[in-house]
């Protein structure tokens, strides 16, 4: 076999600038973190020499690391799970035609437009124990008789933060689902209706299986985003009270920029990076499989 395709340089030149920038801004810090994590580092960022895995050992001896890790898992599972359960029915409704759908879409998407920081600031004020208007509203409706200090105790604060986390993840997830729903073949539904399927059966046997790839992608992307999300917890409680709402990212941020434990912080960064990496590979494989399937379909259409 001979191949006569010239190596095209034009497209490579076209992707080069974006590639170089991404490499230096995203690639370099990873290497730097790996290097730093095996150094003894002074408070002021001075390298004091190679110490191997000492920083990692220290991380694994740290009880706060474990409690943050456990809370990260709870945070991620609860927010992603809650988001998915709420988003799918919402997407199905928003995909259907009803009066005021445009307005409903705008409202549901609204949290996406606002930065997480602002949202968290808004909620921090709304939930204020003394003057927060959430308490005022609940008291007006006689749901509670006394104002509640929402953010003063760790378990309650963490629960509230999870709920806010769900709220801000809904728009993105709903958007993925809406994209998926609009790509579902209409004739499958018509065929199923002719076959005598009821609405619930349509959902169970047509929508859900066809939406599976989109649900998978929504899970992976949300896991990555939520796992990494700092602003909500940082703004609302800064991981407190008494480290009671710390997850890995807030703990990492404190170590690095409050306590100046750069070696240990780098080690945690790397640990988190590897977790993320696994999820990213899962995502890439998933996307590739989907592309592969749709490529197959294209071939079939061509034939």
């Amino acid at each position, binding site marked *: *076999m*001979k*191949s*006569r*395709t*010239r190596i095209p340089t034009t497209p490579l030149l076209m992707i080069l600038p974006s590639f170089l920038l991404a490499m230096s801004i995203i690639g370099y810090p990873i290497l730097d973190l790996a290097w730093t994590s095996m150094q003894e580092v002074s408070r002021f960022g001075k390298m004091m020499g190679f110490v191997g895995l000492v920083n990692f050992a220290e991380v694994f001896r740290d009880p706060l690391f474990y409690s943050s890790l456990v809370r990260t898992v709870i945070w991620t599972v609860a927010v992603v799970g809650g988001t998915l359960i709420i988003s799918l029915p919402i997407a199905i409704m928003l995909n259907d035609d009803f009066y005021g759908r445009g307005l409903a879409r705008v409202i549901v998407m609204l949290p996406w437009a606002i930065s997480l920081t602002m949202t968290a600031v808004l909620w921090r004020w709304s939930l204020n124990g003394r003057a927060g208007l959430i308490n005022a509203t609940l008291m007006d409706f006689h749901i509670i008789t006394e104002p509640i200090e929402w953010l003063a105790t760790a378990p309650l604060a963490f629960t509230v933060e999870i709920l806010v986390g769900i709220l801000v993840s809904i728009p993105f997830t709903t958007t993925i689902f809406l994209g998926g729903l609009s790509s579902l073949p209409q004739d499958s539904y018509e065929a199923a209706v002719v076959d005598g399927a009821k609405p619930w059966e349509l959902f169970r046997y047509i929508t859900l299986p066809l939406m599976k790839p989109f649900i998978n992608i929504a899970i992976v992307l949300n896991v990555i985003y939520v796992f990494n999300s700092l602003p909500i917890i940082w703004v609302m409680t800064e991981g407190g009270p008494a480290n009671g709402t710390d997850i890995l990212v807030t703990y990492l941020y404190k170590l690095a920029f409050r306590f100046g434990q750069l070696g240990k912080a780098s080690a945690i960064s790397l640990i988190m990076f590897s977790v993320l990496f696994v999820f990213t590979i899962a995502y890439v494989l998933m996307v590739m499989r989907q592309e592969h399937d749709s490529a197959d379909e294209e071939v079939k259409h*061509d*034939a």
Partner: protein
Amino acid sequence: MASVTISGVEKWFGTLQILHGIDIDIEDQEFVVLVGPSGCGKSTLLRMIAGLESISDGEISIGTRMINDVPARDRDIAMVFQNYALYPHMSVFDNIGFSLKLRKRSKQEISEKINEAAEILDLTPYLERSPRQLSGGQRQRVAMGRALVRDAQVFLFDEPLSNLDAKLRVVMRTEIKALHQRLKTTSVYVTHDQIEAMTMADRIVVMNKGRVEQTGTPMDLYDFPANLFVADFIGSPSMNFIEGIVAADNEGPFVMAKDRTRLAISRESSAALGQKVVYGARPEHLVLASGNEGFDATIEVIEPTGPNIQIFADVAGQRICALSTERRTHKPGQRIRLHCPETSVHLFDASSGARI
């Protein structure tokens, strides 16, 4: 206007070979149709003439100029695309005039040319519209107009009618042919529709799997298909094929089908006794016979098409099709005798597929 010479052209995508050494000579003013099933490489070849695909090996010349390394814009060709490729952000007028504008012709010349083309194509009332506001047939005309104003050496057509409905397709096909008779511009036309090929072409090139199967005038290909592929591809309904072995008895040579059905062939045939062959007969050559002539058939399905009746019948375990103009009432299950005059029989070698 000019001739187009394609010699030894190959196309590779990586290690995949799409075209295996194509040789076609297209004469000045000729209308040549490249026809073949999808994936046969006909569109790739056309795009190579256009300069939209690189030429991996071999040469393409327009007139006496070798154009392998000439970019599309300098090849002096015009092309009509399958999806018309009208510029959506330009009016019909600007679409047709874009090439002239790029060539920096004077405003007056441009609008004269556009008006002339619009006149020919009945587009005059639509010149200010945007392509979006046109029907499929009108878009097709705009695409033609864009080619027309160019005075190009060669017109290339890439399945230009495949997005039109059946009726419009027939109308446009006649229009394109009439246009060619008027302008006489050398044209290369790609289609997968053999009827389009038959009706429009001066000469047809049948392609399959990246190779040229046969080149010739429409009637040449119809009457003397070089091999089984061409015989099967050209003609609708297609030619009937029955496999068998060449034998002879005192009445002359014949092909013996599997169930010993006797299919008479011409005495002049060069087929050797005992040779495994495929017996081919076009549906319109199969006539209802009486007496000893021909062979037995059992009617399975009857399909009237208006001008004639298609009779699908079982012969030697194979379904064949015969055309009858008689309005006799045949019934499924009925046994009839069909006969094909020996001079109309096509014989092909069973292993190579080549005409005998």
